[in-house]
């Protein structure tokens, strides 16, 4: 049978935890030469002044790689709240081989994502069979006017620059769709 705990032992231990955390935050350099530096000791990132590095594969904003898009409409149809708008027209592209017939392709006229509606579920990125949509970790795109949250294909294309290079999945993780931005 274990010895009965001393009454109040847990209380003292709790006070010790908070007390130690306070000292560690105030004096990150240790108590031998106490130099108060809470900014260095706290885990807080003072956001507007300094930015936190988002983790790999963070979901910030969705980027569009226009040349990969075939206007197949899968993303628009899978989108739970219908925030993707696609319009395209048929056009001729030069043949793959010399002397071949010109190919018929869909040229995008409009590819808009309404971020006022988007719920960042990522289904469009998952469902895209041609690697045209990517998650970007960029998160600073708030707007004073709600209409400005409708990102057109030019802006969605600009987000492409912020998409990090493909990182191999961790060992043992489920093999998923491999999305290679460039």
């Amino acid at each position, binding site marked *: 049978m274990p010895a009965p705990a001393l009454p109040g032992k847990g209380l003292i231990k*709790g006070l010790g935890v*908070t*007390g130690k955390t*306070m000292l560690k*935050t*105030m004096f990150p350099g240790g108590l031998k030469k106490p130099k108060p530096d*809470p900014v260095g*000791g*706290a885990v807080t990132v*003072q956001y507007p002044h300094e930015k936190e590095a988002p983790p790999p594969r963070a979901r910030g904003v969705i980027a569009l790689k226009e040349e990969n898009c075939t206007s197949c409409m899968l993303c628009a149809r899978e989108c739970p709240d219908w925030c993707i708008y696609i319009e395209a027209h048929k056009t001729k592209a030069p043949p793959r081989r010399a002397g071949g017939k010109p190919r018929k392709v869909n040229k995008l006229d409009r590819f808009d994502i309404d971020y006022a509606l988007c719920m960042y579920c990522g289904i469009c990125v998952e469902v895209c069979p041609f690697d045209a949509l990517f998650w970007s970790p960029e998160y600073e795109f708030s707007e004073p006017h709600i209409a400005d949250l409708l990102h057109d294909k030019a802006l969605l294309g600009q987000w492409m620059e912020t998409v990090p290079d493909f990182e191999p999945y961790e060992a043992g993780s489920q093999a998923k769709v491999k999305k290679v931005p460039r």
Partner: protein
Amino acid sequence: MNVLANILDPYWAKTIVRVVGALAFAILIAGTLVYVYLFKAVSFMQSRLGPMEAGPQGSMQLLAEVGKFLQKEDIYPTKADRLLFKAAPYVVFMSTFLLVLIIPFGPDAWFANLDVGIYFALSVSSISVIGILMAGWSSANKYSLLGGLRAAGQLIAYELPLVLAVVGVVIQAGTLNMQGIVGAQANGEIFGFGGIGNPYILTQFVGFAIFMISMQAELTQTPFDMPIAESELVAGYLTEYSGMRFLLFFIAEFATAGVFSAIAAVLFLGGWSLPGLHWESLGDVSNVMNVVGPLVLIGKVMVLSFIIFWVRFTFPRFREDQLQRLAWKFLIPISLVNIAATAVLKVAF
């Protein structure tokens, strides 16, 4: 009538000094505690920074907060009892304000030197219960009412151990006068050794512990914050208050924390006196201690209120029945035994 002559009358002059001085002390100590402990020390305990934007290290944050509260709309519930609803914060604040009066800051630095000092303090501190009940009752809100009743039950339950813990000190000092208690500690001796006087925290440690626990409950600070338990009662008796009236409750809460710490410092830590300081009559030390004494007292207040906030941000809230059990079955019997033991030892030595 000559108004000026009335003001220069010693009675009115004294009254003005008391009102202005006690108000200034209450607001300054509340501001200091809120910034140093509630904003900063507590943030550090959670590895946060606290306010950083307003002024260097957020030191102007209090002004920003007061400005924010002053701008807010003054809202009354339709069914509220207007008069009681308006008066409640002032009643609570008045209790704090009256408590400041009897604290001795130095040999001559006091607002009122009552012979019944500590008795007066314990009586006026119970006025806040009435204010809180008024707030809870007049809000016409079931959360407010529940919070108000919980507060009444809790404050009355913890008033008893608070008073009984003080009785031990009073027996040892042989006086109710706050200045007399300071003197009894500075000039006392523990079993014949008088080098550091007799700060009652040494001989009345049980009383000190009970006083601190009951004080925490009287201030409705966590772990005794059942009356404003935000996860059950929205904000208890504060639910319907906004703007200036909420600010008054807020200032009163933290000013009372400071004032109760000052009373605890006077009762158990020797007040404005320093260990090793003795005097025949108060006049011997009045030159130096009238200046140094207030600083010493403020230092002791900061130490004691640090304990309040340290406990507040370490422990989770009590359940209502646990709270009552602690007071009635544990603190009150112990404090009664403490009184009996103190009385026996006082007579024996």
